[in-house]
């Protein structure tokens, strides 16, 4: 991660710094002490509640540990990984997760861009539209998911009635479509906000000049706005992809993972609370963690995204 480049100057003002090796001035040492004191609580909490459990999960993933058979614990090496990676359930959950992620992120990007355009350019009622378009962001995911669930229940829901009393949540492909729609509805405002922030950095003069030079609206969009918005787009995509990859709430409410719609998060949850198998559950956790790391790495290396947060140090 690019955040890990060891530059001591990150965040420091450009003024000359005292040499750090020979001896620190009294003030610099006090500053250092204060810095450590201020970050200590946050660091301790994050280490104890996030880092330690992950290490513990690695440990558990190398053992058999079933809550139903608590006596039967032993070290089994990578047997759990073998079991998970050779199980069709894992691959199906991964496939479902990737399908949902790719489609929902791609469509959200397009719709978010359109929404950002409207929010940026609409000639009247901008405040009202901005306000109302934030509502899906504010609504509790589970609450919205119940709305979609009942809307698609035959005999109960207006959407089901609209489509000939169809029951999409009883079938694999249609369930996935409903899940993706629910995801898109909920997350488009967030995407639009991030894109809008990028859009507002595009200088108006540039667009006007291009217009005078005879560039069409599409050319102005693809040749000027998109390149200038690239950092904002990539950060928004990275956020949304990682977020979408851990999809849980919508699936849990809409299908509970039936009809082959369970994501990797659903699989991990089921394994813990229905199979009570901590060894396998931890293995799934580690594998999900590795997937997320790969996605983040691909974005940062492949697209040259600045990792969100690195600008904290950049100043």
């Amino acid at each position, binding site marked *: *991660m690019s*955040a890990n480049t*060891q*530059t*001591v100057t*990150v*965040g420091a003002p450009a003024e000359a710094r005292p040499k750090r090796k020979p001896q620190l001035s009294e003030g610099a040492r*006090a*500053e*250092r002490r*204060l*810095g450590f004191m201020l*970050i200590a609580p946050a660091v301790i*909490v*994050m280490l104890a*509640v*996030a*880092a330690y459990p*992950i290490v*513990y*999960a690695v440990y*558990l993933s190398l053992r058999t540990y079933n809550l139903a058979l608590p006596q039967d614990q032993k070290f089994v090496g990578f047997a759990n990984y073998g079991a998970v990676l050779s199980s069709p359930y894992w691959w199906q959950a991964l496939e479902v997760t990737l399908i949902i992620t790719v489609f929902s992120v791609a469509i959200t990007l397009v719709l978010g861009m359109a929404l950002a355009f*409207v929010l940026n350019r*609409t*000639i009247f009622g901008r405040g*009202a*539209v901005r*306000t*109302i*378009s934030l*509502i*899906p962001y*504010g*609504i509790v*995911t*589970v*609450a*919205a998911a*119940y709305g979609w669930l*009942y809307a698609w229940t035959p*005999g*109960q829901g207006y959407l089901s009635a609209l489509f000939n009393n169809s029951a999409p949540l009883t079938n694999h492909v249609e369930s996935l479509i409903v899940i993706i729609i629910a995801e898109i509805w909920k997350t488009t405002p967030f995407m639009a906000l*991030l894109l809008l*922030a990028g859009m507002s950095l595009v200088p108006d003069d540039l667009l006007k000049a291009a217009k005078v030079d005879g560039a069409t609206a599409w050319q102005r969009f693809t040749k000027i706005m998109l390149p200038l918005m690239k*950092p*904002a787009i990539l*950060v928004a995509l990275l956020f949304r992809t*990682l977020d979408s990859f*851990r999809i*849980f*709430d919508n699936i849990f*409410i809409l299908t509970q993972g039936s009809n082959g719609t369970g994501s990797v998060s659903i699989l991990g*949850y089921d394994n813990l609370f229905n199979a009570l198998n901590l060894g396998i559950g*931890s293995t*799934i956790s580690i594998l999900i*963690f590795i997937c997320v790391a790969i996605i*983040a790495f691909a974005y940062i290396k492949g697209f040259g995204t600045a990792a969100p*947060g*690195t600008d*904290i140090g950049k100043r």
Partner: protein
Amino acid sequence: MAAITPRRRAGWATANLVVIALALIPVLWLVSLSFKTPAAVLDPSFLPAQWTWGNYHGILTSAQFLRPLANSIGIGLISTFIAVVLASMAAYAIARLRFPGKSVLIGMSLLIAMFPLIALVTPLFTIERALGLFNTWPGLIIPYVTFGLPLGIYTLSAFFREIPWELEKAAKVDGATPFQAFTKVIAPLAAPGMVTTGILVFLACWNDFLLAISFTSTIASRTAPAAMEYFSGGSVFTVPTGPIAAAAVVITIPIIIFVLFFQRQIVAGLTSGAVKG
């Protein structure tokens, strides 16, 4: 910009209407469901044939909903408070002080922000059971604080970088220690950023479902989103659709009002730093 022709006006009006309709219809559907009688729930028309307050009356007199609602509010507020305090301290240090290991801290919080929550559920579940934290308020507050921290550190350091630090120097010249400079001068200036961060962290806690269903087993600590799931099995309600819709509205409406009221802060917080790089 070119003159506003009637056609352009009509075009934007349509665009606005589409946006508003798409954003509102699913919400209005929930509201409508919550006012339907148990019989009318089985009628797919968008609006209820007869309106009833029955669903609201049912859930607002039932401990199965009231207790989780109180849990949601209490756990959310406590988590938010702790996370904002800890994040402010860390963000100040990052934005302002010179000390080694800063990039490690940023990397670590970035890692946690991107973390798939489910990956922590299994180990944390085991740890919480061993420590007796399972199904308690702290059992949810502790992870909520942890996941609020990266968001808080990220947002707050973006805010802190905008603060005129000359004031701090002036305070130091006047004889204030760095700690006094922080509490007396900078913290009040940073208050708006802290409010924004608090809102974002609170929304995240309020919205959480995975941790809430994983680390609770009774209404002693179950939060509202997790409690709705259990309406179905309860004998108190005949048809759960209406009560669930009513509960969904109850936990949503305050947040929507909240979002609309603090719209500016939320937008500023969500986009802070994200595009400045």
